[in-house]
């Protein structure tokens, strides 16, 4: 005897259970609760319908463009410039400039990833020299490309000199009957993960880097996907020091 009566009943019940529990749950109602806009930037617009997240600034910006200081109003305090290389490969994670606030002495950068069709998750580690700048806020931005079809979680933890975080993706449809191995997580390109506001502390140049080995994309079989990491250089100068 393999199973008692209750198993037969269970099977019937599970037909209903499947129907009920497979009803998609909007991740925005679940894990998105963790997306605490701890210090949302005033200049970041709301989510755009293409699912790339609510950072229209990031989504629409040319990734290779450094922030043009000519567009920044004269600051009585800081002159901030940013420079970043262009990713040379299809798979990358980069730090991209978003905005500067010379008056406030802050630089906002985004951690952004290229498209991945098959992805278990992405781990990132952004670092700065705390003697020249420090992390003052982190805003998580990810919006899943297929709302309702993917379970995802995005967390970030910061210290004055770094931001460590991760994005995990999992398909929801494989919850029952021993599933769980068919991951179909995907990132729309390019996908912003966090915005980090850095408070400049000292004049000079500092790198905003994506550290190894904690910045890694993970495939469904828990192998590391080849990934180019592109950082950013920020140059900060006092207005009076600027020639």
């Amino acid at each position, binding site marked *: *005897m*393999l*199973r*008692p*009566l209750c*198993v*037969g009943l*269970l*099977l019937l*019940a*599970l*037909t*209903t*259970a*499947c129907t*009920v*529990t497979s009803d998609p749950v909007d991740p925005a109602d*679940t*894990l998105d*609760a*963790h997306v605490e806009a701890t210090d949302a930037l005033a200049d970041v617009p709301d989510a755009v319908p293409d699912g790339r997240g609510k950072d229209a600034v990031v989504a629409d910006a040319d990734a290779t463009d450094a922030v043009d200081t000519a567009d920044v109003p004269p600051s009585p305090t800081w002159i901030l410039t940013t420079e970043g290389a262009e990713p040379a490969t299809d798979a990358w994670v980069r730090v991209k400039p978003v905005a500067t606030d010379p008056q406030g002495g802050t630089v906002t950068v985004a951690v952004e990833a290229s498209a991945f069709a098959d992805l*278990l*998750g*992405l*781990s*990132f*580690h952004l670092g700065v020299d705390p003697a020249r700048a420090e992390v003052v806020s982190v805003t998580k931005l990810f919006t899943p490309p297929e709302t309702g079809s993917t*379970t*995802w*979680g*995005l*967390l*970030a*933890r910061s210290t004055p000199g770094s931001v*460590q*975080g*991760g*994005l*995990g*993706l*999992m398909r*929801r449809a494989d*919850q*029952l*009957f*021993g*599933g*769980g*191995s068919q*991951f179909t997580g995907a990132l729309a390109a390019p996908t912003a993960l966090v915005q980090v506001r850095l408070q400049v502390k000292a004049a000079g140049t500092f790198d905003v880097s994506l550290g190894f*080995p*904690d*910045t*890694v994309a*993970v495939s469904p079989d*828990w*192998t*590391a996907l080849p990934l180019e990491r592109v950082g950013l250089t920020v140059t900060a100068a006092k207005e009076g020091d600027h020639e």
Partner: protein
Amino acid sequence: MSRLAVLLLLLASEVLAAPAPPAPSIVEGSTAEGTPGSPLTNRLEPGLAARRQLRAAEAPPLARFQGLPPTATTLYDNGPQGLYDVQRVDLDVFVKPGENDLTVFSTITVISNQEALDQIQLSYQLPPVLWVRLVDDTPLENEVTGSGFFTVVPDHLLAAGESFTFRMAATGSVSCESNMVAACEFATPITYVTYAGYFPENLNSSDPFVGTLRLAVPPDYAAAATGTLVSITDEGGAHVYTWDHTVPTTFFSFGVAPYQTVTDDPSGIPITVWSLPENQASAAEMVPVTDQVLTLYGDRFAPFPWSKMDIVEIGNSFGGGYGPLSTIFLLSWAFQMSDHPGGGMMNELISHELGHQWWGNLVSVWSPDSVWLSEGFAEFSSCLFNAESTGQRRQFLTDGLMYQYQVPSDQDKPISHYQIYLSEFYQTIVYDKGAFILDMLRFELGDDAFFAAMRHHVSKFAYAFAGNADFAAAIEESSGQDLGWFFDQWVYGRGYPGFLVSATRTEQGVSLRLEQTQTEKVFKMHLPVRVLAAGVDAAEQSVWVDDATTEVLVPFGADPLLVSVDPDRRQLRRLTLANPADPNLDGEVNGLDVIRFTTGMQRNLVHSTDQGDFFYPNANYPDYLDLAYDGKIDQADFDVFAAAFEGTGP
């Protein structure tokens, strides 16, 4: 005119006062083998075991039939001895399909095991007895008590070794609800009766007998039964089926319905499925599955021991099915499972009952403390088939999780507890944990040594009874290992270990600390530890745990992505994270932990619906992420993890 033909006429006129004509001669010259042994089955089994109050010492190892063909007198002869042995039972049964109205003529032969035996007591659930007589029609004193016993008083005191034969007749209805050791259903379209409780049965239900079952059914019905079908004749307007039971059995069982059959022998074993016409498609699917299962078990355990395999559809009167020798009975549900999204349930059921052809039949069990050698082994066999046919250990893992999550620790019992059949969690412990215990033994020995040991066990106890000590001895003989710790821990002991797992990063690697959290005893086991790192192949080491706290260094050549303890769940154990923020166990809190946690979510064991919560294990369930240990890895668990990760927790 045979007795059955006369019986038909008598029944037609509803006159049964007259004695029946002499019993028909037994069909001679049958060479076919195959008939039920002593299956121990789900709902049936607790009651059966309850009547096995005698807990005798384990039977000694017995070398069986080395190159010799077994004979009936040498089969299953190492069981417990009662006051007498039932040698032969011949039954003639008249069935009115759909009606609870059995008429049975029985001829029973016993041999006394003691001097001056003055009565023969049998278990009995039959309809009212009409008469009991000697073969020369001399009436015998007899009594049926309300508690299911039937006593026959011989016409003289029986000497030790003396054979005594008597006949009896009975007719009327039986209760299918009151008898826990039997199952029956008098419904349309299937009439189904099993177990000797409806026929005279030795109180020592592990005392098998040979015999013949003859069944008369209306001509538009077909009958299927245990045993080997030797003839179908037309008598008195009825079909009369005759089955020989030349291998000792402890009961007869049959179904009567407008059956249709599907027959094939793809690997040389004749397979016949008896089903209702509407289930013929499922019946056809069962044939190749049955062939695959028998081929696998024949390769791993021992050659298929019988001459044929029948599968018979019965009503949904009790659990999933049961597996007597060479004939298994499956509920109608089983024929309707193939399209269920659960998939594979039909195969699980069939492969379990087919497992009983080896476990419970070829190697039989009589002591309730050894019932897992039948049910747990059959379930292991089913899990093995599932794993071999799918490439995944899903059924093994499901069974393990069923045990771990469903059995409260204060209600857990050793699988060898002599009253395990009384446990509310009988099935979870005996079937599910039993299968997992055997798989842990397989893990300990390795496949080659394990299956060699299983074959050795079968060779010793084929056509005989075996107990826990017999099995342990056979495994140790074959493997050459002292496995007393394993049997003490898993067979004679209860529970399973919990480990509090912490990881610390060092220059040499990750230092893992495994602290056993249960207080009852320290468990021993090999725990695999696997490291996945970027750019290098996965590395795995086996950690021998035999102390309350074990520390092990897990070296790695590159920074690890994921460190896993027992990632394939080869052991019964619970893992608890010492640091909830580090579920990837690499000793650091970073984004990899987010990936690890998130991708482990939603694989629940408990599924909430409008009708309540249902427990259905997910084989890939990473229980160490179930921080609340409530069968779900859900938002609440994520909240705890997130607070720990982001440093906002307590």
